[in-house]
């Protein structure tokens, strides 16, 4: 394991290093999340009951849009400067590279978004019980967003209008995560069991992991062919 793990770790470390050098990219995404989420009180009116009711949905939808914003750069820079071809030629399986790059993507989007969530939840006056479940749901759900998104990002490489294409491909597949992510919080807020919804989110993650690895690798192979 230690022999096979080191190259994977270096792929993750490389992407993290690149992301941390462009720290403003991560900040932009978190800022987008916070700004978009704070638009809703202006649109719906400052009624605490209403805002509390829509908070789980608003937070999930805005987090999902923020992840979408970041998807294009997942493979594009490597594709354009040719390092993707070198990665594809390396003895590492392409599936592992997809998972490594997606993991790095989650560390630089899903994790910061989850970290910023308590602040948004505070603005919407979400009770602590709901917030705890929301955070658990985001920890389980945002990796799936990155994984499904990596398929879309890999498929759109080299396409015309790739940036517009990715949301079109990915958003329909995001719907189950949105449904169960919001349902978990709604259940917690109305004193029902949130556990089944969290388990379903975990199941979605378990399905997304191999799907993204195989589909993403197949798409990358076509892109560098």
């Amino acid at each position, binding site marked *: 394991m230690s022999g096979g793990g080191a190259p994977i770790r270096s792929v993750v470390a490389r992407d993290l290093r690149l992301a941390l050098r462009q720290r403003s990219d991560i900040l932009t995404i978190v800022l987008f999340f916070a700004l978009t989420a704070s638009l809703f009180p202006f649109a719906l009116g400052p009624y605490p009951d209403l805002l509390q009711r829509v908070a789980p949905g608003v937070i999930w939808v805005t987090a999902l849009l923020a992840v979408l914003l970041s998807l294009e750069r997942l493979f594009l820079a490597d594709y354009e400067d040719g390092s993707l071809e070198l990665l594809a030629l390396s003895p590492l399986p392409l599936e592992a590279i997809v998972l490594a790059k997606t993991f790095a993507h989650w560390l630089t989007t899903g994790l910061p978004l989850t970290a910023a969530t308590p602040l948004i939840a505070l603005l919407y006056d979400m009770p602590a019980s709901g917030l705890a479940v929301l955070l658990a749901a985001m920890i389980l759900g945002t990796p799936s967003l990155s994984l499904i998104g990596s398929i879309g990002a890999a*498929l759109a490489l*080299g396409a015309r*209008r790739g940036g517009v*294409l990715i949301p*079109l*491909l990915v958003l*329909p597949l995001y719907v*189950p995560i949105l449904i169960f992510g919001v349902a978990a919080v709604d259940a917690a807020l109305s004193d029902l069991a949130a556990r089944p919804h969290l388990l379903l989110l975990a199941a979605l993650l378990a399905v997304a992991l191999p*799907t993204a690895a195989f*589909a993403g690798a197949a798409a990358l192979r076509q892109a560098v062919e």
Partner: protein
Amino acid sequence: MNRTATSSQQSGSLHRFANPARFLRLAQAVFPWSAGAMALCIAAGLYLGLFVAPPDYQQGESVRIMYVHVPAAWMALFVYANMALASASLLIWRHPLAGLIAKASAPVGTAFTFLALFTGSLWGKPMWGTWWVWDARLTSVLILFFIYLGHMALINAFENPERGQKAAAVLTLVGVVNLPIIKFSVDWWNTLHQPASVTRIGTPAIHSSMLWPLLLMALGFTFYYVTVLILRLRAEMLASRLRAMNRLAAEEG
């Protein structure tokens, strides 16, 4: 490096015409039969459905929307399943015809999905009192519609048509997860949409006077799919032959 790759594809694309040419001959022979069967089945199905079948004791005459709605919904799923099979054989065996079949099926499937949603909406207004509800069956079919649209956008987004077909094939296979969700959504969730009454184990919960027009329409829609598929495949093959000839001409000239 790219240059050599395209020129080796060219020699491949010339000798792969052997197989599509045989397919075209077969399709040419099937075409009049499928077109005729389509016209017969749809005419008989519409006549039986609109004039012979009895009105429903609760829903009255509006139940006749079923004879378009249900077969269209079946076709939406059937065409997608067919596209998924074609996509798999494109990716596994690199069968060039499979990519064209998936490409030619997508607009037909989109149209059937739209028809199912549209007629469902027309049916929902008098029955449920609303054009649309965010019910599990309706929502999952709407997602199917979006996946069809994404497929068509992706397949046309590349300069190289083969790259587009392969990318769209991966998307189609990923989207297959939606099919069981659509099928079982009425059983898994407590939905407004009614559960299946024809494809049940044992006897269908529907009288034969209503079942016949339904099956005839489904058969007619299937023949429509075959007919349109042949037309579209013929056009696609001519277009790709034209592209190959243009490339050859450009290379020689």
